């Protein structure tokens, strides 16, 4: 077992079936204290099931899990006092105001009346909801609702925060608001485990990404390392005249060190892997200019997590 002071979330060999359908088939997971871990995977990979087991909402069939140092199965109450959970739906009361919501949840977290009031005010402030504090939640935008949802999860300043697809269904502005809130929580040392099917979200927020598929961990690393694993930067030249293709292939081949450049005749593009991107870019640009090739565009392409995803799971991200 990994040290419980070092890791806030530890899962070993979790299994879970729903009828004939196997959701988890031996999932291992370890999230270092105070970091943000992105759980990424195609639909049906077991992301939500994992989070629900760790948040004590669902019982695993096999394996074990510890959250904040307590076994989720044997001591769910202790776990519940140390976690915050934000599910896929913004689970706040539509009819109450933001302030009433936070006071109610604070009371249900067993704060005394005065502390509950104080805590509600602090959270309204931290999540920029003070202005709208007395409005009914049903008048809120998606982003505000999510922020209130997050605020409600933060009442006890939990050690671990679970976020299940926190920005699904939000517009870009709402997503930005939620990202900012999550970064703020991470900055004060909250361990965050988030699931998402937005690769850019996992890329932007996570310290580490765990890629899961078919209920198992496929790989785990930092976003940068995962992208590197798929291949480094690629140099791409886009031409405006098909006649220049052989010229471009020759120029790009000089900087790819033996790996033959790939040609996309439809887009008139030639691209290949490079190690020292900037030098390669200037070399190729000069060579093409000297040869008088008709270059439409030339640039470095960084691999995205989409490519990591595709490479590792063999399928498009849903």
């Amino acid at each position, binding site marked *: 077992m990994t040290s419980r002071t070092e890791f806030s979330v530890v899962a070993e060999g979790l299994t879970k079936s729903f009828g004939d359908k196997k959701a988890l088939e031996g999932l291992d997971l370890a999230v270092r204290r105070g970091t943000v871990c992105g759980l990424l995977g195609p639909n049906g990979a077991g992301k939500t099931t994992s989070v*629900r087991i760790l*948040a*004590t*909402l*669902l*019982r695993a069939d096999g394996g074990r899990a510890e959250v904040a140092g307590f076994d989720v199965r044997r001591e769910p*109450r202790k776990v*519940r*006092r140390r*976690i915050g*959970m934000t*599910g*896929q*739906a*913004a*689970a*706040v*009361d*539509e*009819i*109450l105001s933001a302030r*009433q919501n936070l006071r*109610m*949840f604070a*009371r*249900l*977290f*067993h*704060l*005394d009346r005065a*502390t509950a009031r104080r*805590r509600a005010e*602090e959270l309204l402030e*931290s999540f920029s909801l003070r202005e709208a504090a007395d409005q*009914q939640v049903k008048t809120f935008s998606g982003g505000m609702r999510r922020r209130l949802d997050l605020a*409600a999860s933060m*009442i*006890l*300043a939990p050690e671990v925060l679970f976020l299940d697809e926190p920005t699904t269904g939000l517009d870009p502005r709402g997503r930005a608001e939620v990202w900012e809130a999550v970064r*703020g*929580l991470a*900055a*004060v*040392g*909250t361990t965050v485990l988030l699931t998402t099917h937005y690769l850019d979200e996992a890329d932007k927020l996570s310290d580490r990404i765990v890629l899961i598929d078919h209920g198992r961990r496929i790989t785990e690393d930092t976003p940068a390392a995962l992208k590197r694993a798929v291949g480094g930067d690629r140099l791409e030249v886009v031409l405006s005249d098909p006649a220049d293709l052989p010229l471009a292939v020759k120029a790009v081949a000089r900087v790819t060190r033996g790996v033959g450049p790939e040609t996309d005749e439809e887009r008139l593009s030639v691209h290949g892997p490079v190690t020292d991107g900037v030098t390669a870019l200037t070399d190729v640009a000069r060579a093409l200019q000297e040869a008088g090739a008709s270059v439409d565009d030339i640039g470095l392409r960084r691999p995205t997590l989409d490519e990591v995803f595709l490479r590792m799971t063999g399928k498009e991200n849903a």
Partner: protein
Amino acid sequence: MNAAPIAIDAEGPERRAYWALIDCGTIVRRDLTHLVKQPSLIAWQLGFPIVSVLLFVYVFGSAMDVGEGLDYKDFAMPGMFAMTMAFGFMNTAMGVVIEKERGVIDRFRSMPMAPSAVVAGRGVSDVLQAGVDLAVMASIALVIGWRSDGSLPETLTAFALLLWLRFALIWVGVWIGLVTPNQEAAGNLFAVAFPFGMVSSVFTPPSLMPDWLGAIAMWNPVSSTANAIRELFGNPLPTGGSWVEENAMLLAFAWPLALTLVFLPLAVRRYQRLAR
């Protein structure tokens, strides 16, 4: 972001019981706030029984003959009270489905609050709301000329029996709410509720129905409550003289007890099975 540690109450067994009560109170308070913020909810809910009163008493009433020299209004009003209680299980079920769908129940389950409070709080607020419903209905009944001829204790016992039926149906409602997949499906509950409320002694004596239907209507728990309170209110009680009708008072107590004994454990089990 304030991450200062927050003092939480210690967690002994005796504190646990205390917090279970407080949690229940917090949920009830929330439900009552809902009512205050949306008084139209009560209006909608009472819409059907009120329209029924007007329809049956004034539109069909003249054609209804429940017995020699008996006023249909006096027969129908207690029935209407019982029917309103019977239909109440739909509100409970709908409330549970909405909370389940919105993820509110999941949020509660991920919190250190007493699990019992989610269901108990709902029960307490539903009974309180049923009390409001009954008060409104009884006022309307008084306006259109219905009277209780029973003594004060008898009248109060009648209302207590009505709330007792409503209490039993909370567990039916919670159970249905937990097994119903979504709000759309819950909307179809009316197809179940309607015959449950109507195939009874609410609007017509079962003795006037075809034999098989009359038997079902007689054994309907709603009929027992309706007949028992008619007896207590001193309102007309035309029966076919069968055992079940003669013992309405006993059954008005026993039926809800039986429903509670069956559906309370079912609802609790279903709630626990959310973790499966």
